[in-house]
Protein backbone atom coordinates (compact mmCIF):
# COMPACT_ATOMS: atom_id res chain seq x y z
CA UNK A 1 0.00 0.00 0.00
CA UNK A 2 1.20 3.52 -0.78
CA UNK A 3 2.22 5.62 2.20
CA UNK A 4 1.31 9.31 2.34
CA UNK A 5 4.24 11.73 1.89
CA UNK A 6 2.79 13.91 4.61
CA UNK A 7 -0.12 14.04 7.00
CA UNK A 8 -2.28 11.25 8.29
CA UNK A 9 -4.93 9.07 6.69
CA UNK A 10 -7.71 7.72 8.81
CA UNK A 11 -10.60 5.60 7.74
CA UNK A 12 -13.40 4.52 10.08
CA UNK A 13 -11.31 5.99 12.94
CA UNK A 14 -8.31 3.79 12.21
CA UNK A 15 -5.21 3.71 10.09
CA UNK A 16 -5.79 2.24 6.64
CA UNK A 17 -4.82 -1.39 6.36
CA UNK A 18 -5.33 -4.28 4.01
CA UNK A 19 -8.24 -6.52 4.74
CA UNK A 20 -10.59 -4.00 6.34
CA UNK A 21 -13.96 -5.77 6.19
CA UNK A 22 -15.75 -2.41 6.15
CA UNK A 23 -14.40 -1.73 2.67
CA UNK A 24 -15.40 -3.53 -0.52
CA UNK A 25 -12.98 -3.07 -3.41
CA UNK A 26 -13.50 -3.50 -7.13
CA UNK A 27 -10.21 -3.13 -9.01
CA UNK A 28 -10.09 -1.53 -12.42
CA UNK A 29 -9.07 -4.67 -14.20
CA UNK A 30 -9.83 -8.20 -13.23
CA UNK A 31 -7.82 -10.78 -15.07
CA UNK A 32 -10.26 -13.50 -15.91
CA UNK A 33 -8.65 -15.88 -18.34
CA UNK A 34 -10.71 -17.03 -21.31
CA UNK A 35 -10.00 -20.60 -20.17
CA UNK A 36 -11.19 -19.99 -16.61
CA UNK A 37 -14.37 -21.99 -16.67
CA UNK A 38 -15.74 -21.32 -13.19
CA UNK A 39 -19.29 -20.31 -12.41
CA UNK A 40 -19.72 -16.82 -11.09
CA UNK A 41 -21.53 -17.95 -7.92
CA UNK A 42 -18.34 -19.72 -6.87
CA UNK A 43 -16.33 -16.48 -7.09
CA UNK A 44 -18.86 -14.53 -5.03
CA UNK A 45 -19.04 -17.32 -2.43
CA UNK A 46 -15.26 -17.35 -2.14
CA UNK A 47 -15.29 -13.58 -1.70
CA UNK A 48 -17.47 -14.21 1.37
CA UNK A 49 -15.64 -17.14 2.95
CA UNK A 50 -12.35 -17.41 1.02
CA UNK A 51 -10.38 -15.92 3.91
CA UNK A 52 -11.14 -18.88 6.11
CA UNK A 53 -8.84 -21.84 6.08
CA UNK A 54 -10.30 -25.22 5.36
CA UNK A 55 -12.18 -26.97 2.68
CA UNK A 56 -15.92 -26.59 2.75
CA UNK A 57 -18.21 -23.94 1.41
CA UNK A 58 -21.18 -23.51 3.71
CA UNK A 59 -24.86 -22.86 2.96
CA UNK A 60 -24.28 -19.54 4.70
CA UNK A 61 -21.93 -18.19 2.05
CA UNK A 62 -24.24 -19.52 -0.63
CA UNK A 63 -27.05 -17.46 0.84
CA UNK A 64 -24.88 -14.35 1.17
CA UNK A 65 -23.63 -14.78 -2.40
CA UNK A 66 -27.14 -15.12 -3.80
CA UNK A 67 -28.21 -12.06 -1.80
CA UNK A 68 -25.39 -9.95 -3.24
CA UNK A 69 -26.02 -11.22 -6.77
CA UNK A 70 -29.70 -10.41 -6.42
CA UNK A 71 -28.85 -6.86 -5.34
CA UNK A 72 -26.82 -6.31 -8.50
CA UNK A 73 -29.44 -7.98 -10.69
CA UNK A 74 -27.21 -10.90 -11.55
CA UNK A 75 -29.15 -13.87 -10.16
CA UNK A 76 -29.61 -15.35 -13.60
CA UNK A 77 -25.82 -15.26 -14.09
CA UNK A 78 -25.13 -17.30 -10.94
CA UNK A 79 -24.48 -20.58 -12.74
CA UNK A 80 -22.84 -19.08 -15.81
CA UNK A 81 -19.14 -19.41 -16.24
CA UNK A 82 -17.04 -16.27 -15.80
CA UNK A 83 -15.31 -16.67 -19.16
CA UNK A 84 -18.50 -16.37 -21.17
CA UNK A 85 -19.85 -13.24 -19.47
CA UNK A 86 -19.80 -9.89 -21.23
CA UNK A 87 -17.95 -6.88 -19.82
CA UNK A 88 -21.11 -5.43 -18.31
CA UNK A 89 -22.14 -8.74 -16.77
CA UNK A 90 -18.69 -9.26 -15.29
CA UNK A 91 -18.82 -5.77 -13.83
CA UNK A 92 -21.99 -6.73 -11.93
CA UNK A 93 -20.42 -9.96 -10.69
CA UNK A 94 -17.40 -8.03 -9.39
CA UNK A 95 -19.75 -5.59 -7.69
CA UNK A 96 -21.48 -8.54 -6.01
CA UNK A 97 -18.06 -9.89 -5.05
CA UNK A 98 -17.32 -6.61 -3.25
CA UNK A 99 -20.80 -6.36 -1.71
CA UNK A 100 -21.07 -9.89 -0.37
CA UNK A 101 -19.17 -9.14 2.83
CA UNK A 102 -21.54 -6.22 3.59
CA UNK A 103 -19.01 -3.36 3.53
CA UNK A 104 -19.84 0.23 4.51
CA UNK A 105 -17.66 1.71 1.83
CA UNK A 106 -17.40 0.58 -1.78
CA UNK A 107 -14.20 1.48 -3.61
CA UNK A 108 -14.76 1.32 -7.35
CA UNK A 109 -11.64 1.92 -9.43
CA UNK A 110 -12.73 3.25 -12.81
CA UNK A 111 -15.76 0.99 -13.17
CA UNK A 112 -16.90 2.86 -16.27
CA UNK A 113 -13.84 2.26 -18.41
CA UNK A 114 -14.47 -0.06 -21.35
CA UNK A 115 -18.25 0.17 -21.09
CA UNK A 116 -20.46 1.48 -23.85
CA UNK A 117 -22.95 4.31 -23.21
CA UNK A 118 -25.88 2.06 -22.36
CA UNK A 119 -23.93 -0.17 -19.95
CA UNK A 120 -22.30 2.87 -18.44
CA UNK A 121 -25.71 4.29 -17.66
CA UNK A 122 -26.97 0.94 -16.31
CA UNK A 123 -23.97 0.57 -14.04
CA UNK A 124 -24.22 4.08 -12.61
CA UNK A 125 -27.92 3.49 -11.97
CA UNK A 126 -27.12 0.16 -10.35
CA UNK A 127 -24.46 1.61 -8.05
CA UNK A 128 -26.90 4.37 -7.10
CA UNK A 129 -29.58 1.80 -6.22
CA UNK A 130 -27.13 -0.20 -4.11
CA UNK A 131 -25.90 2.90 -2.30
CA UNK A 132 -29.48 3.87 -1.38
CA UNK A 133 -30.82 0.38 -0.59
CA UNK A 134 -27.81 -1.03 1.27
CA UNK A 135 -26.92 2.29 2.85
CA UNK A 136 -23.29 2.16 1.77
CA UNK A 137 -20.98 4.89 0.53
CA UNK A 138 -19.52 4.44 -2.92
CA UNK A 139 -16.23 6.10 -3.76
CA UNK A 140 -15.99 5.92 -7.50
CA UNK A 141 -13.00 6.93 -9.58
CA UNK A 142 -13.71 8.13 -13.11
CA UNK A 143 -12.07 10.13 -15.87
CA UNK A 144 -15.37 11.19 -17.32
CA UNK A 145 -17.74 12.58 -14.77
CA UNK A 146 -20.71 13.18 -17.07
CA UNK A 147 -22.49 9.81 -16.66
CA UNK A 148 -22.21 10.18 -12.87
CA UNK A 149 -23.54 13.72 -12.58
CA UNK A 150 -27.21 12.89 -11.84
CA UNK A 151 -26.33 10.86 -8.73
CA UNK A 152 -23.35 12.53 -7.10
CA UNK A 153 -23.45 13.55 -3.46
CA UNK A 154 -19.90 14.85 -3.26
CA UNK A 155 -17.07 15.33 -5.76
CA UNK A 156 -13.32 15.36 -5.39
CA UNK A 157 -11.69 16.78 -8.49
CA UNK A 158 -7.98 16.10 -8.82
CA UNK A 159 -5.96 17.68 -11.61
CA UNK A 160 -2.48 19.15 -12.00
CA UNK A 161 -1.66 18.46 -8.37
CA UNK A 162 -4.63 20.56 -7.30
CA UNK A 163 -7.78 19.40 -5.58
CA UNK A 164 -11.29 20.80 -5.53
CA UNK A 165 -13.79 19.14 -3.26
CA UNK A 166 -17.35 19.78 -2.20
CA UNK A 167 -20.94 19.39 -3.25
CA UNK A 168 -21.38 19.08 -7.01
CA UNK A 169 -23.09 22.44 -7.44
CA UNK A 170 -20.18 24.19 -5.67
CA UNK A 171 -17.36 22.45 -7.52
CA UNK A 172 -18.90 21.96 -10.90
CA UNK A 173 -18.79 25.47 -12.25
CA UNK A 174 -17.03 26.67 -15.37
CA UNK A 175 -14.82 29.00 -13.28
CA UNK A 176 -13.59 26.49 -10.69
CA UNK A 177 -12.93 23.72 -13.20
CA UNK A 178 -11.13 26.03 -15.63
CA UNK A 179 -8.91 27.16 -12.75
CA UNK A 180 -8.28 23.56 -11.74
CA UNK A 181 -7.46 22.11 -15.15
CA UNK A 182 -5.66 25.13 -16.54
CA UNK A 183 -7.61 24.76 -19.79
CA UNK A 184 -11.02 26.25 -20.55
CA UNK A 185 -13.81 24.00 -19.25
CA UNK A 186 -17.47 24.73 -19.61
CA UNK A 187 -20.36 23.39 -17.54
CA UNK A 188 -23.46 23.18 -19.70
CA UNK A 189 -27.08 22.72 -18.67
CA UNK A 190 -29.67 21.55 -21.17
CA UNK A 191 -33.39 22.32 -21.17
CA UNK A 192 -34.21 19.36 -18.90
CA UNK A 193 -31.65 20.33 -16.30
CA UNK A 194 -29.05 17.77 -17.35
CA UNK A 195 -25.50 18.89 -16.76
CA UNK A 196 -22.53 18.14 -18.98
CA UNK A 197 -18.93 19.14 -18.57
CA UNK A 198 -16.79 19.65 -21.63
CA UNK A 199 -13.29 20.84 -22.24
CA UNK A 200 -13.19 23.51 -24.91
CA UNK A 201 -10.61 22.86 -27.55
CA UNK A 202 -8.09 25.59 -28.03
CA UNK A 203 -7.60 26.43 -31.67
CA UNK A 204 -4.05 26.74 -32.75
CA UNK A 205 -4.87 30.07 -34.38
CA UNK A 206 -5.73 31.49 -30.96
CA UNK A 207 -2.24 31.22 -29.58
Amino acid at each position, binding site marked *: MQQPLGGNIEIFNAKPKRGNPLIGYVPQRHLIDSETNIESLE*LVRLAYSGRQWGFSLSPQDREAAFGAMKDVGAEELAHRSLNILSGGELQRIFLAEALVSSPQLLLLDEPLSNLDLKREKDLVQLVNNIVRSRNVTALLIAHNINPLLPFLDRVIFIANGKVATGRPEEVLTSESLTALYGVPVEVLRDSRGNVAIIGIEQHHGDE
Partner: protein
Amino acid sequence: MAFSVNFVSDLLELFRYPFMQHAIEAGTIVAIIAGIVGYFVVLRRSSFAAHALSHIGFAGAAGAVLFAVSPVYGLLLFTGVGGSAMAVLSPRATNRDVHIGTVLAFMLGLGVLFISLYAGNSSQTYSILFGQILGISSNDVLLTLVAGAIILAVVAVVYRPLLFSSLDEDVAEAKGMPTFLLGIVFMLLVAVATSIAVQVVGVLLIFSLMVTPAAIAQRLAKRPRTAITISVGIALVATWLGLSVAYYGPPYPVSFYITTIVFGFYLLVRFFYRRVRPLRMNKDTLPET
Protein backbone atom coordinates in the same frame (compact mmCIF):
# COMPACT_ATOMS: atom_id res chain seq x y z
CA MET B 1 0.08 -62.71 -21.92
CA ALA B 2 -3.34 -63.87 -23.14
CA PHE B 3 -6.69 -63.08 -21.59
CA SER B 4 -8.43 -65.98 -19.91
CA VAL B 5 -12.21 -66.24 -19.61
CA ASN B 6 -12.23 -65.16 -16.01
CA PHE B 7 -11.90 -61.36 -15.91
CA VAL B 8 -11.46 -61.25 -12.14
CA SER B 9 -8.54 -63.61 -12.15
CA ASP B 10 -7.05 -61.55 -14.98
CA LEU B 11 -7.29 -58.46 -12.83
CA LEU B 12 -5.79 -60.25 -9.85
CA GLU B 13 -2.98 -61.37 -12.10
CA LEU B 14 -1.96 -57.70 -12.24
CA PHE B 15 -1.08 -57.86 -8.54
CA ARG B 16 0.86 -61.10 -8.70
CA TYR B 17 4.33 -59.59 -8.73
CA PRO B 18 5.55 -57.16 -6.08
CA PHE B 19 6.87 -54.76 -8.73
CA MET B 20 3.33 -54.50 -10.16
CA GLN B 21 1.84 -53.98 -6.70
CA HIS B 22 4.28 -51.18 -6.04
CA ALA B 23 3.59 -49.65 -9.45
CA ILE B 24 -0.16 -49.69 -8.87
CA GLU B 25 0.12 -48.30 -5.35
CA ALA B 26 2.53 -45.49 -6.21
CA GLY B 27 0.74 -44.78 -9.50
CA THR B 28 -2.58 -44.42 -7.72
CA ILE B 29 -1.22 -42.01 -5.12
CA VAL B 30 0.58 -39.96 -7.77
CA ALA B 31 -2.50 -39.79 -10.01
CA ILE B 32 -4.66 -38.49 -7.15
CA ILE B 33 -2.11 -35.89 -6.07
CA ALA B 34 -1.25 -34.76 -9.62
CA GLY B 35 -4.95 -34.44 -10.46
CA ILE B 36 -5.59 -32.20 -7.46
CA VAL B 37 -2.45 -30.05 -7.58
CA GLY B 38 -2.79 -29.86 -11.37
CA TYR B 39 -6.15 -28.12 -11.03
CA PHE B 40 -4.52 -25.24 -9.18
CA VAL B 41 -1.64 -25.22 -11.68
CA VAL B 42 -4.11 -24.72 -14.52
CA LEU B 43 -6.22 -22.21 -12.59
CA ARG B 44 -3.15 -20.11 -11.77
CA ARG B 45 -1.88 -20.43 -15.36
CA SER B 46 1.35 -21.82 -13.90
CA SER B 47 1.82 -24.76 -16.23
CA PHE B 48 5.17 -23.46 -17.41
CA ALA B 49 6.29 -23.19 -13.79
CA ALA B 50 5.23 -26.81 -13.17
CA HIS B 51 7.06 -27.92 -16.31
CA ALA B 52 10.17 -25.97 -15.31
CA LEU B 53 10.08 -27.32 -11.75
CA SER B 54 10.20 -30.89 -12.97
CA HIS B 55 13.22 -30.07 -15.15
CA ILE B 56 14.90 -28.37 -12.23
CA GLY B 57 14.17 -31.58 -10.38
CA PHE B 58 16.13 -33.41 -13.05
CA ALA B 59 19.28 -31.53 -12.02
CA GLY B 60 18.58 -32.47 -8.40
CA ALA B 61 18.04 -36.12 -9.26
CA ALA B 62 21.21 -36.24 -11.34
CA GLY B 63 23.13 -34.68 -8.45
CA ALA B 64 21.66 -37.21 -6.03
CA VAL B 65 22.75 -40.07 -8.28
CA LEU B 66 26.24 -38.58 -8.40
CA PHE B 67 26.41 -38.62 -4.61
CA ALA B 68 24.86 -42.10 -4.44
CA VAL B 69 21.65 -40.89 -2.79
CA SER B 70 18.14 -41.86 -3.92
CA PRO B 71 17.12 -39.48 -6.77
CA VAL B 72 13.87 -38.54 -5.02
CA TYR B 73 15.78 -36.60 -2.32
CA GLY B 74 17.58 -34.59 -4.96
CA LEU B 75 14.25 -33.97 -6.65
CA LEU B 76 12.63 -32.76 -3.42
CA LEU B 77 15.56 -30.49 -2.56
CA PHE B 78 15.91 -28.87 -5.98
CA THR B 79 12.21 -28.47 -6.75
CA GLY B 80 11.57 -27.16 -3.23
CA VAL B 81 14.32 -24.53 -3.46
CA GLY B 82 13.54 -23.77 -7.11
CA GLY B 83 9.80 -23.43 -6.44
CA SER B 84 10.30 -21.10 -3.49
CA ALA B 85 12.76 -19.04 -5.53
CA MET B 86 10.24 -18.68 -8.35
CA ALA B 87 7.51 -17.60 -5.93
CA VAL B 88 9.79 -15.04 -4.25
CA LEU B 89 11.44 -13.69 -7.43
CA SER B 90 8.24 -13.18 -9.38
CA PRO B 91 5.22 -13.11 -7.11
CA ARG B 92 3.14 -11.68 -9.95
CA ALA B 93 2.29 -13.46 -13.17
CA THR B 94 3.66 -10.60 -15.29
CA ASN B 95 6.91 -11.55 -16.99
CA ARG B 96 7.11 -14.68 -14.86
CA ASP B 97 7.96 -16.92 -17.80
CA VAL B 98 11.18 -15.06 -18.49
CA HIS B 99 12.40 -15.45 -14.89
CA ILE B 100 11.38 -19.09 -14.76
CA GLY B 101 13.04 -19.87 -18.08
CA THR B 102 16.26 -18.20 -16.93
CA VAL B 103 16.43 -20.25 -13.73
CA LEU B 104 15.40 -23.37 -15.66
CA ALA B 105 18.22 -23.12 -18.22
CA PHE B 106 20.82 -22.65 -15.48
CA MET B 107 19.53 -25.65 -13.52
CA LEU B 108 19.43 -27.88 -16.59
CA GLY B 109 23.02 -26.86 -17.23
CA LEU B 110 23.86 -28.10 -13.73
CA GLY B 111 22.06 -31.35 -14.56
CA VAL B 112 24.25 -31.87 -17.61
CA LEU B 113 27.36 -31.28 -15.47
CA PHE B 114 26.22 -33.84 -12.89
CA ILE B 115 25.56 -36.45 -15.56
CA SER B 116 28.98 -35.94 -17.15
CA LEU B 117 30.63 -36.25 -13.73
CA TYR B 118 28.79 -39.47 -13.02
CA ALA B 119 30.81 -42.39 -14.26
CA GLY B 120 28.15 -45.10 -13.90
CA ASN B 121 25.65 -46.21 -16.51
CA SER B 122 23.03 -43.93 -17.94
CA SER B 123 19.98 -46.05 -17.19
CA GLN B 124 19.21 -43.98 -14.08
CA THR B 125 19.31 -40.79 -16.11
CA TYR B 126 16.93 -42.38 -18.57
CA SER B 127 14.48 -43.41 -15.88
CA ILE B 128 14.53 -39.91 -14.35
CA LEU B 129 13.73 -38.44 -17.75
CA PHE B 130 10.98 -40.84 -18.75
CA GLY B 131 9.85 -42.50 -15.54
CA GLN B 132 10.38 -45.99 -14.23
CA ILE B 133 7.14 -47.04 -12.63
CA LEU B 134 8.01 -50.74 -12.80
CA GLY B 135 11.14 -50.17 -10.73
CA ILE B 136 9.50 -48.72 -7.64
CA SER B 137 10.59 -50.26 -4.32
CA SER B 138 8.39 -50.67 -1.25
CA ASN B 139 10.41 -47.88 0.35
CA ASP B 140 9.56 -45.60 -2.57
CA VAL B 141 5.89 -46.46 -2.12
CA LEU B 142 6.07 -45.52 1.55
CA LEU B 143 7.78 -42.22 0.74
CA THR B 144 5.16 -41.53 -1.96
CA LEU B 145 2.40 -42.26 0.53
CA VAL B 146 3.83 -39.90 3.14
CA ALA B 147 4.43 -37.12 0.60
CA GLY B 148 0.94 -37.63 -0.82
CA ALA B 149 -0.66 -37.48 2.62
CA ILE B 150 1.17 -34.25 3.43
CA ILE B 151 0.02 -32.67 0.16
CA LEU B 152 -3.58 -33.73 0.80
CA ALA B 153 -3.50 -32.29 4.32
CA VAL B 154 -2.01 -28.98 3.15
CA VAL B 155 -4.50 -28.66 0.30
CA ALA B 156 -7.37 -29.35 2.71
CA VAL B 157 -6.16 -26.50 4.92
CA VAL B 158 -5.40 -23.87 2.24
CA TYR B 159 -8.16 -24.91 -0.18
CA ARG B 160 -10.43 -21.86 0.05
CA PRO B 161 -7.78 -19.11 0.32
CA LEU B 162 -5.70 -20.72 -2.42
CA LEU B 163 -8.70 -21.06 -4.70
CA PHE B 164 -9.76 -17.46 -4.14
CA SER B 165 -6.29 -15.99 -4.55
CA SER B 166 -5.76 -18.07 -7.69
CA LEU B 167 -9.01 -16.76 -9.12
CA ASP B 168 -8.81 -13.12 -8.08
CA GLU B 169 -5.42 -12.19 -6.67
CA ASP B 170 -5.98 -8.43 -6.54
CA VAL B 171 -9.13 -8.63 -4.47
CA ALA B 172 -7.66 -11.38 -2.29
CA GLU B 173 -4.72 -9.10 -1.55
CA ALA B 174 -7.01 -6.17 -0.80
CA LYS B 175 -8.90 -8.41 1.60
CA GLY B 176 -5.67 -8.87 3.51
CA MET B 177 -5.16 -12.47 2.51
CA PRO B 178 -1.56 -13.75 2.57
CA THR B 179 -1.27 -14.06 -1.22
CA PHE B 180 2.54 -14.06 -1.16
CA LEU B 181 2.64 -16.89 1.37
CA LEU B 182 -0.04 -18.78 -0.57
CA GLY B 183 2.12 -18.41 -3.69
CA ILE B 184 5.02 -20.08 -1.90
CA VAL B 185 2.79 -22.82 -0.44
CA PHE B 186 1.44 -23.47 -3.93
CA MET B 187 4.93 -23.76 -5.43
CA LEU B 188 5.98 -26.17 -2.66
CA LEU B 189 2.88 -28.29 -3.35
CA VAL B 190 3.87 -28.43 -7.00
CA ALA B 191 7.47 -29.23 -6.03
CA VAL B 192 6.55 -32.21 -3.85
CA ALA B 193 3.89 -33.45 -6.27
CA THR B 194 6.40 -33.24 -9.12
CA SER B 195 9.05 -35.10 -7.14
CA ILE B 196 6.82 -38.10 -6.55
CA ALA B 197 5.26 -38.01 -10.03
CA VAL B 198 8.69 -38.29 -11.65
CA GLN B 199 8.81 -41.98 -10.67
CA VAL B 200 5.74 -42.63 -12.80
CA VAL B 201 6.18 -40.50 -15.92
CA GLY B 202 9.61 -38.91 -15.58
CA VAL B 203 10.51 -35.23 -15.65
CA LEU B 204 9.93 -34.84 -19.39
CA LEU B 205 6.40 -36.25 -19.36
CA ILE B 206 5.15 -34.63 -16.16
CA PHE B 207 2.69 -32.48 -18.11
CA SER B 208 0.62 -35.54 -18.93
CA LEU B 209 -0.35 -36.08 -15.28
CA MET B 210 0.07 -32.64 -13.79
CA VAL B 211 -1.51 -30.36 -16.37
CA THR B 212 -3.44 -32.10 -19.12
CA PRO B 213 -6.01 -33.97 -16.94
CA ALA B 214 -6.76 -30.75 -15.03
CA ALA B 215 -7.00 -28.75 -18.24
CA ILE B 216 -9.47 -31.27 -19.65
CA ALA B 217 -11.46 -31.21 -16.41
CA GLN B 218 -11.63 -27.44 -16.46
CA ARG B 219 -13.30 -27.55 -19.85
CA LEU B 220 -15.84 -30.06 -18.59
CA ALA B 221 -16.85 -28.65 -15.20
CA LYS B 222 -17.35 -25.15 -13.86
CA ARG B 223 -17.38 -26.03 -10.17
CA PRO B 224 -13.89 -26.52 -8.73
CA ARG B 225 -14.71 -29.63 -6.76
CA THR B 226 -16.32 -31.33 -9.76
CA ALA B 227 -13.38 -30.34 -11.93
CA ILE B 228 -10.88 -31.70 -9.40
CA THR B 229 -12.80 -34.98 -9.22
CA ILE B 230 -12.74 -35.31 -13.02
CA SER B 231 -9.06 -34.37 -13.15
CA VAL B 232 -8.19 -37.07 -10.59
CA GLY B 233 -10.41 -39.53 -12.45
CA ILE B 234 -8.62 -38.99 -15.77
CA ALA B 235 -5.19 -39.29 -14.16
CA LEU B 236 -6.26 -42.51 -12.39
CA VAL B 237 -7.78 -44.12 -15.47
CA ALA B 238 -4.71 -43.26 -17.57
CA THR B 239 -2.33 -44.67 -14.95
CA TRP B 240 -4.26 -47.89 -14.33
CA LEU B 241 -5.00 -48.45 -18.00
CA GLY B 242 -1.41 -47.68 -18.95
CA LEU B 243 -0.12 -50.22 -16.45
CA SER B 244 -2.61 -52.87 -17.57
CA VAL B 245 -1.88 -52.43 -21.26
CA ALA B 246 1.85 -52.59 -20.65
CA TYR B 247 1.36 -55.75 -18.58
CA TYR B 248 -0.99 -57.64 -20.88
CA GLY B 249 -0.23 -56.02 -24.22
CA PRO B 250 2.95 -55.03 -26.04
CA PRO B 251 5.61 -54.37 -23.39
CA TYR B 252 6.32 -50.75 -24.30
CA PRO B 253 7.15 -48.19 -21.59
CA VAL B 254 4.26 -47.50 -19.20
CA SER B 255 4.85 -43.75 -19.41
CA PHE B 256 4.32 -43.98 -23.18
CA TYR B 257 0.91 -45.58 -22.60
CA ILE B 258 -0.06 -43.07 -19.91
CA THR B 259 0.83 -40.05 -22.03
CA THR B 260 -0.98 -41.52 -25.03
CA ILE B 261 -4.16 -42.23 -23.07
CA VAL B 262 -4.15 -38.72 -21.56
CA PHE B 263 -3.60 -37.24 -25.00
CA GLY B 264 -6.55 -39.30 -26.28
CA PHE B 265 -8.77 -37.80 -23.57
CA TYR B 266 -7.51 -34.37 -24.53
CA LEU B 267 -8.29 -34.80 -28.24
CA LEU B 268 -11.71 -36.21 -27.45
CA VAL B 269 -12.70 -33.30 -25.25
CA ARG B 270 -10.99 -30.65 -27.35
CA PHE B 271 -12.71 -31.60 -30.58
CA PHE B 272 -15.88 -33.44 -29.69
CA TYR B 273 -17.07 -31.55 -26.66
CA ARG B 274 -18.41 -28.04 -27.00
CA ARG B 275 -19.38 -26.12 -23.93
CA VAL B 276 -22.96 -24.94 -24.10
CA ARG B 277 -22.73 -21.21 -24.50
CA PRO B 278 -25.57 -18.76 -24.34
CA LEU B 279 -26.90 -17.87 -27.79
CA ARG B 280 -26.51 -14.18 -27.10
CA MET B 281 -23.32 -13.16 -28.84
CA ASN B 282 -21.48 -9.90 -28.51
CA LYS B 283 -17.85 -9.06 -28.73
CA ASP B 284 -17.21 -10.19 -25.19
CA THR B 285 -18.82 -13.59 -25.48
CA LEU B 286 -17.39 -14.73 -28.78
CA PRO B 287 -15.83 -18.11 -28.24
CA GLU B 288 -12.10 -18.24 -28.62
CA THR B 289 -10.96 -19.94 -31.78
